[in-house]
């Protein structure tokens, strides 16, 4: 391996391998923050700086006007996630962080699919829409817009199904998640 600081050549494979060490299971972080300007930038900046990729991110108000919730999903091995939550805790405006356990969590995402689906294919597509408990929210002669809510996997599955019908675009909100049971997220 090209040692740091020496003149040895560092191959691109070595560089990629060093980056590859970081992937692991998906984590859903639910973060309560003070509702102030710049807080999201601080969080996004921290992720970028520490080399973590945010997969999805949603921000919204909570029952308390002073507090906002950021739900974000990250791909990471267990150890670096621990580093990320610790680093997040150091941000003064971050109030609380939960690394949600997949089993103890209900999660939802909303997606809208714009699909060409012209002619007889359309009724076939609408059957799928029903199976997925989707809703048609807009239609023209040349396109339909279908809304699907569910866990990430369900939306992925519908995408598979919809693709052959002439998928024009997908817009997804990113996941939100809530702890199961009585306790607060």
């Amino acid at each position: 391996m090209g040692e740091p600081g020496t003149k040895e050549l560092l191959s691109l494979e070595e560089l990629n391998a060093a980056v590859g060490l970081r992937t692991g299971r998906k984590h859903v972080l639910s973060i309560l923050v003070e509702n102030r300007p710049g807080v999201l930038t601080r969080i996004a900046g921290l992720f970028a700086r520490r080399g973590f990729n945010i997969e999805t991110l949603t921000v919204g108000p909570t029952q308390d006007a002073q507090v906002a919730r950021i739900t974000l999903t990250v791909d990471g091995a267990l150890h670096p996630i621990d580093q990320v939550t610790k680093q997040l805790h150091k941000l003064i405006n971050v109030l609380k962080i939960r690394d949600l356990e997949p089993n103890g969590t209900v999660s939802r995402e909303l997606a809208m699919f714009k699909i060409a689906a012209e002619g007889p294919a359309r009724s076939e597509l609408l059957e799928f829409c029903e199976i997925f408990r989707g809703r048609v929210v807009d239609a023209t002669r040349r396109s339909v817009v279908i809304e699907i809510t569910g866990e990430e996997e369900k939306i992925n599955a519908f995408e598979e199904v919809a693709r052959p019908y002439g998928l024009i675009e997908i817009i997804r909100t990113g996941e939100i998640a809530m702890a199961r049971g009585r306790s607060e997220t």
Partner: protein
Amino acid sequence: MRAADAVMECLKAEGVDVVFGLPGGANLPTYDAFYDAGIHHVLVRHEAGGGHAAEGYAKATGKVGVAFATSGPGATNLVTPIADAMLDSVPVVFITGQVRTDLLGTDGFQEADTMGITMPIVKHSFMIQHPLELPRALHEAFHIARSGRPGPVLIDIPQDLSRADIGYEPVTEVSLPGYQPTFEGNHKQIRQAAKALAAAKRPVIYAGGGVINANASAELTDFAIAGGFPVTCTLMGLGGFPGTNPQWLGMLGMHGTRTANYAMDGADLICAVGARFDDRITGKLSEFAQQAKFIHIDVDPAEISKNVPAHIPIVGDARNILAKLLVEYRELEPDASRMEDWWAQIERWRAEYPLGYEDSTDSEIKPQYLIQALYEATGGDAVIVSDVGQHQMWAAQYYHFDKPRRWINSGGLGTMGFGLPAAMGAQVGLPDQVVCAITGDGSIQMNIQELATCAQNEIPVKVFIMNNGYLGMVRQWQELFWDHRYSHVDMGQFPDFVKLAEAYGASGFRFVDKNTLVEDIRAAIATPGPVLADVRVTREENTYPMIAPGAAARDMVG
């Protein structure tokens, strides 16, 4: 009261006795307030100088340093000191002017997104959006800067807001629900640590800058002496344990002693206190201290297990924890003889690998000797402020620091140009101490303008340039690891430092003879006012020993 005057009241309420700064359009209201606020303001010649001076002041006194700058270029000139303070955990409040709120976001004259630029390098920052927020933000800034793991806090104040008329009421309590640093260490963990230490046959205490920041040197020293443990410190921790104590192994890391690095390598238990397992300490991480278990005491939970997994983590204030650890340890009445073999081994290393160099046979001054001469001339009792390069490593190796806050340098960021302004800040904070800057012919030129500040304000720092005519540390790496290809490191003998000193209103000296060096240094220190001494040393001398880049600590060279 004008918001700018409220800023002055806040500074007074925080006990600020000096600020370093330079005015401009966006902070004219603040400077107008300085006019009769009765706060000691030192007008620097470059904002970077002001920022480093605030750091030097903070490191020397343990109090929060304060630096002011205007918007745009004034603020961007602070970027280096802010990053420096972040990496070395220095409590400094930086207060910048910003363009008027109606100009914000319009690329107004001297507008820069100071918050955005500095966001990754501050502990926290405030952009004032309403003048009434100002007093609270200031007090919160001081609280955040000095508590927990200290660090830089920035406050950006738009010009028009500082002209606003606000009532000022002192803010006595800050409430930061998202910020509650842990102070008390977990008692169970402390007991665990005491037990592990009592059982260890080959323990080492590895202390870092956190010990200095927590004012925990006395507790560390008591604990180490009571336990009979060998102690090593990082570059930032020097003075945290007396450098003349028999239990002292020397500094560890890239240019540490062999004894310290070998002890880490052979230890069965390493007790890290306020240290962060930086790559300059560990060498090749996968081969670092493979036989050891780790106790890690740190006020910042994010440092625990960041680089090296901790077996017994203790989060909290080092001073508090070490005092308790001593009590717990004593109760166990451990048998000191368990460490006899370990100490015998350490003594063998010491005898075999003392720090040393080949002295010149003529009158040439070896760089290492300059530090030894400085140590002798000052009786080891000066505050030594260093710049960055070979001279820094030699100063760390050859000046034995017995007390905390006597060694001030830029460790984490390695900022050339830190030395002179930081020495200036330290001297302002400690007017009765001898403050000496050790710098290089490269580093000194990065903030030499502050000599004017020293001369004008009669700040009597004694600056010793270890002049090798090179960017020496880079030259050393090119020699050792890049086949002697000296690419752009030779600076010749420009400028003439003696003349330059005189032009600045300081006293200039040139020392070239080792036989008179101790006397020469004494004379320089006895000279009133600021002094710049150009000390000509061996041009191509290498800093040894050394952990080569990417090598394991046990494979030190030189």
